[in-house]
């Protein structure tokens, strides 16, 4: 647009800022780097930092010139380069780790033979471009998905599901960029529905999202390899997660336990507008779930009262601090035994959803005080909040997890045992569902 800019990243975030600039086509950009942190410090300290930085800001505004004007010439994304190396499998793994082509777990060396075998699992052309993986924005082709599938130890027949997953993630509303770069302890939830669950033996019952399910583990590993290697999502710069976690290795990936749906409850992909006979994947960026361990409740009403203190949007400072988040979707993965309590009461899925929305509420006063004070100071925020929730903004208001009951998504997950899980999604992400195609 022909307008010069200056960006003020903190010292801890300048690496990510530089990577972002490169992914947008510039070798560098004018930054004025302020010592970290900015958030969470007092006004006087922050003002002192700005005072110290002022000369640098002025210099960036008026005197900055790029040292180099062009990036290196671009290669075509297909076919991927092939290179030679001598060593053992362990040596290959060590080399991949040093080149940032690994997330620290063993990989199968991606030979052209393994790649060719993997590509037999899909009828799609290997040169088909699927999109750019954030934050590094390298181009992802069908071929490159197969490379990562081979590294993760997937079977060729997993390719259609894997391709559907990455296509869903590449939709902007999935906010894969945010999941890959945020300071939050973020990961992915991937729900698989339809005939493909049984065809491939995707874990959907006992321990569905855990170990010992080869399709789940290997596909999840492949997705996260794509994010780390193609997308550059790795600490300390591409992935700014404060703490990280095991979800960085394998996401929460499971098949819905459609065999244990209460009578009359549609499976999740039918909720999403697909046919029961379709095979569908649904993805969402999420925080680690809360396990509702409820062995005591004998009725669904008792069960819902147990949720109230656990199911919370406050993990992400919820809808209160940012009014647009009032319309955030939340996920309830109901264990089959908890789902049966609703069924015994004669409740359909929508009835459970509405009851959850009405019963599971927490006082606004539980939110961080600066968040509450901020909303009180900004009139349009207070109005937006009250409009979204239809509730007065006061410390006594009991806030539902989200503004409308239809924003609560319900999936039946896992096997026997009285556990359900509540997933808070990441900021500005919504579930994205894709049909699995051959």
């Amino acid at each position, binding site marked *: *647009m022909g*307008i*010069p*800019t*200056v*960006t*003020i990243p903190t010292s*801890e975030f300048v690496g990510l800022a530089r990577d972002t600039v490169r*992914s*947008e*086509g*510039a070798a560098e950009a004018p930054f004025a780097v*302020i010592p970290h*942190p*900015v*958030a*969470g410090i007092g*006004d006087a300290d*922050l*003002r002192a930092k*700005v005072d110290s930085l002022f000369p640098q*800001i002025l210099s960036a*505004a*008026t005197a*900055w010139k790029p040292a180099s*004007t*062009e*990036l290196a010439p*671009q290669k*075509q994304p297909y076919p*991927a*380069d*092939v*290179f*030679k*190396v*001598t060593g*053992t*499998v362990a040596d*290959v793994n060590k080399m991949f780790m040093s080149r940032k082509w690994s997330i620290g777990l063993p990989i199968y060396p*991606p*030979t*052209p033979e393994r790649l060719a075998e993997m590509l037999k699992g899909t009828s799609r052309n290997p040169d088909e471009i699927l999109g750019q993986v954030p934050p*590094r*924005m*390298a*181009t992802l*082709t069908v071929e*490159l998905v197969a*490379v*990562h599938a081979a590294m993760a130890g997937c079977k060729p027949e997993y390719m259609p599901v894997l391709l559907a997953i990455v296509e869903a993630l590449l939709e*902007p509303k999935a*906010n894969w960029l*945010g999941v890959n770069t945020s*300071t939050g302890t973020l990961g992915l939830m991937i729900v698989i529905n339809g005939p493909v669950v049984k065809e491939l033996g995707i874990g959907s019952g006992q321990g569905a999202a855990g170990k010992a399910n080869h399709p789940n583990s290997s596909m999840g590993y492949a997705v996260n390899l794509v994010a780390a290697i*193609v997308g550059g999502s790795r600490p300390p710069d591409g992935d*700014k997660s404060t703490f990280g976690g095991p979800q960085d290795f394998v996401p929460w990936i499971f098949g819905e336990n459609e065999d244990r749906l209460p009578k009359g409850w549609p499976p999740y992909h039918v909720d999403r507008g697909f046919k029961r006979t379709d095979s569908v994947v649904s993805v969402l960026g999420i925080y680690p779930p809360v396990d509702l361990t409820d062995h005591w409740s004998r009725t669904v009403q008792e069960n819902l009262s147990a949720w109230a203190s656990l199911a919370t949007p406050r993990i992400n400072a919820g809808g209160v601090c940012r009014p*647009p988040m009032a319309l955030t979707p939340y996920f309830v993965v109901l264990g089959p035994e908890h789902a049966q309590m609703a069924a015994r009461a004669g409740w359909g899925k929508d009835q459970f959803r509405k009851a959850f929305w009405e019963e599971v509420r927490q006082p606004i006063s539980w939110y961080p005080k*600066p968040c509450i004070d901020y909303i009180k100071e900004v009139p349009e925020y207070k109005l937006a909040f009250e409009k979204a929730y239809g509730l007065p903004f006061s410390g006594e208001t009991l806030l539902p997890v989200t503004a409308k009951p239809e924003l609560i998504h319900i999936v039946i997950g896992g096997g026997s045992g009285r556990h359900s899980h509540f997933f808070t999604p990441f900021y*500005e992400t919504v579930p994205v569902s894709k049909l699995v195609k051959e």
Partner: protein
Amino acid sequence: MKNRWLRDLGICMVLAQLATVPNPGWAKEAVQQWELVNPAGVIKSDPVKFVARPTDLEGKTVVLRWNAKPNGDILLNRLGELLVQNIKGVKVIKAWEVAPDTRIISYGHATSLAVAKKLAVLKPDLVIAAPAD
């Protein structure tokens, strides 16, 4: 008791044999020549050309952009004060006050572009942003 003793003795004898006789079936991991596919992918981007910066900010319009992250407004408020105190005739516009819909985190190119267009409407000579964290 005697049978168990004999059994245990037999096991020890077998283990002793295994420990002393190399088994040709247990090979060391082989060093080999690999042909491997590069998994990194290629970054696609349209090269950016930077416009010339103003040589000074006297009489210029500077737009400050805040993305709603905590304390970003305090940082930019102080910057605004310093600009006014130190630069003659500078006009400071706080985008979040005049265009509240720019006060968002833009998780991606499309939203960033939309925000940039809204900032451009303010006719800045320079935009300064404090994005994170």
